[in-house]
């Protein structure tokens, strides 16, 4: 199933100069329990290049002012940088216009905006919302709770044992009562890549809108919003080299324009009197209060960094690492990876060992300097559907290497020695 050729030591076969770019990430200089850090927890949060760190420091050293176009110079500089980042995000994702980009706190906040604004206004008793079993809790619980509040039906499309979406089950649960479909672009556990364009077209045919959770696609592959075909997408900046504190909500302009604000307060209003409030236009009407200004500007620097290497090159590098990691894991007895491998699979492997509990595995991997996550990865329905109580997850990014995969494999062997 997999191409079995092994890499010739260094990072061959990919267009990225990984050895050079690794120097941009100060955290890669860390030693963990006497070993150089192998950071394989990129699905949870990525490391940051120096240029992003510097851009944040620069905001706070030079223009730590509030935005919204105050007349003084520091506010002017902050506003310019803050709005420039919006233009960068729009270009990065190929949105039709910067005004379709709303800054939020994180993916979860973005999805809560959709549920709390569009959902509250448009979902009623008898309506249905369709999600899948492979969703992160962020794209599952808000819809489940919305349905409970509104007397709507919460439908969950199943996954096959291969990890792929059960398209028959999905089709059977999509109907004229379906008002909204929410689905991950890339699963944060199995790395399954869902065919968003097809699914969105199906949703549109029954008159439903489509929400794509792009938290794990935007960081790892080229994403062209206009080609994707969804009506809303959500993602988190800190998962693509940017600071914590910013999420992105993109929505079709007509939808954003039609929606009531989710949070209210300062900076999102046009006029306030005792009797009445008129709101500003999108995206501003969704950005109540003072935003994460420096984090937004840092996100602009992260996009610059990613574009310097190119998302296609990054994706290809990761797919090559993924191939190699899955091949090595497949060679190990007693190791089972969640979901079947498929060509182009992003570099995530969630696995369990027959002989050791995922927490113990993660503990021993940390002992060898290899950082992985263990647990449910905020995807309890998926684990439940696949009959698992938890897993260990290795997730890679542009700065990871074949050598590091070898180090993880060696560490798993230590676990085997001790436990099996």
């Amino acid at each position, binding site marked *: 199933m997999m191409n079995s050729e092994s890499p010739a030591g260094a990072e061959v076969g990919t267009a990225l100069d990984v050895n050079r770019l690794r120097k941009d990430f100060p955290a890669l200089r860390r030693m963990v329990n006497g070993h150089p850090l192998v950071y394989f927890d990129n699905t949870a949060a990525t490391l940051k290049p120096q240029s992003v760190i510097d851009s944040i420091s620069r905001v706070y050293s030079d223009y730590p002012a509030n935005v*919204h*176009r*105050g*007349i003084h110079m520091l*506010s*002017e500089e902050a*506003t*310019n940088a803050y*709005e420039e980042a919006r233009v960068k995000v729009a270009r990065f994702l190929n949105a039709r216009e910067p*005004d379709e980009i709303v800054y939020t706190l994180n993916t979860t906040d973005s999805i809560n905006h959709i549920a709390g604004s569009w959902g509250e206004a448009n979902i009623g008793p008898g309506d249905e919302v369709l999600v899948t079993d492979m969703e992160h809790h962020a794209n599952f619980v808000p819809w489940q709770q919305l349905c409970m509040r509104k007397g709507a039906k919460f439908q969950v499309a199943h996954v096959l044992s291969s990890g792929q979406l059960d398209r028959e089950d999905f089709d059977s649960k999509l109907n004229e009562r379906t008002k909204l479909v929410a689905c991950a672009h890339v699963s944060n556990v199995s790395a399954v890549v869902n065919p968003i364009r097809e699914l969105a077209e199906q949703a549109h045919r029954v008159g439903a809108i489509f929400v794509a959770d792009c938290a794990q696609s935007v960081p790892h592959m080229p994403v062209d919003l206009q080609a994707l075909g969804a009506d809303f997408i959500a993602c988190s900046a800190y998962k693509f080299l940017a600071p914590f504190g910013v999420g992105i909500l993109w929505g079709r302009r007509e939808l954003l324009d039609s929606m009531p604000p989710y949070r209210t307060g*300062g*900076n*999102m*209003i*046009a*006029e306030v009197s005792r009797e009445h409030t008129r709101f*500003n*236009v999108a995206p*501003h009407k969704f950005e109540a209060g003072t935003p994460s200004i420096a984090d937004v500007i840092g996100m602009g620097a992260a996009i610059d960094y990613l574009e310097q290497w190119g998302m296609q090159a990054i994706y290809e590098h990761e797919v090559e690492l993924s191939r190699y990691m899955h091949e090595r894991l497949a060679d190990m007895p007693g190791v089972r990876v969640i979901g079947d491998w498929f060509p182009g699979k992003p570099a995530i492997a969630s696995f369990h060992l027959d002989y050791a509990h995922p927490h113990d595995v993660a503990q021993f991997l940390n002992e060898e300097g290899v950082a992985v996550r263990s647990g449910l990865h905020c995807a309890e329905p998926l684990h439940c559907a696949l009959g698992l109580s938890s897993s260990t997850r290795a997730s890679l990014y542009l700065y990871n290497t074949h050598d590091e995969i070898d180090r993880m494999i060696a560490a798993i062997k230590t676990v085997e020695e001790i436990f099996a």
Partner: protein
Amino acid sequence: MDLKALYREVILDHYKAPRNTTPLVQPDRQADCRNPSCGDKIKLQLKFDNDRVSEVAMLGNGCAISQASASMMTEALKGKTFAEIDRVVEEFRAMIVNGSTEFDRQVLGDLVILEGVAKLHARVKCAMCGWSALDAALHGDGSDVNLDEDREMPASSRG
């Protein structure tokens, strides 16, 4: 740009004594523009004789830049056709909103003296308030303009 000179030489004159402030009786065209994030307001009224502007009035209040820009605008309108006015609006917008240096100086005439405002991003909307009223008077559907909702303006907020 020397801010003091800009104010002293042009803006204050028009701010303190704005031109064409007598309301017109039965104007042919009129429109209001508000700029809530600044508090500026301008009503623009026009009368035409054949194709050409015969009378104009601006009524408003706000900061010096908004009032001076509108006042200067009224001076530039008399005798112009629809098409000529469109040209002036276009060039003025290019100069102030886009910060272009390629605008047509001849079409703008005396108005080029406001060029420096383009650099004061927070004041671009102030400078455009009268001009948006003008545009709405010529091409609008009769409803008021809210400059905060004009997506071509630099983002700002009223608070």
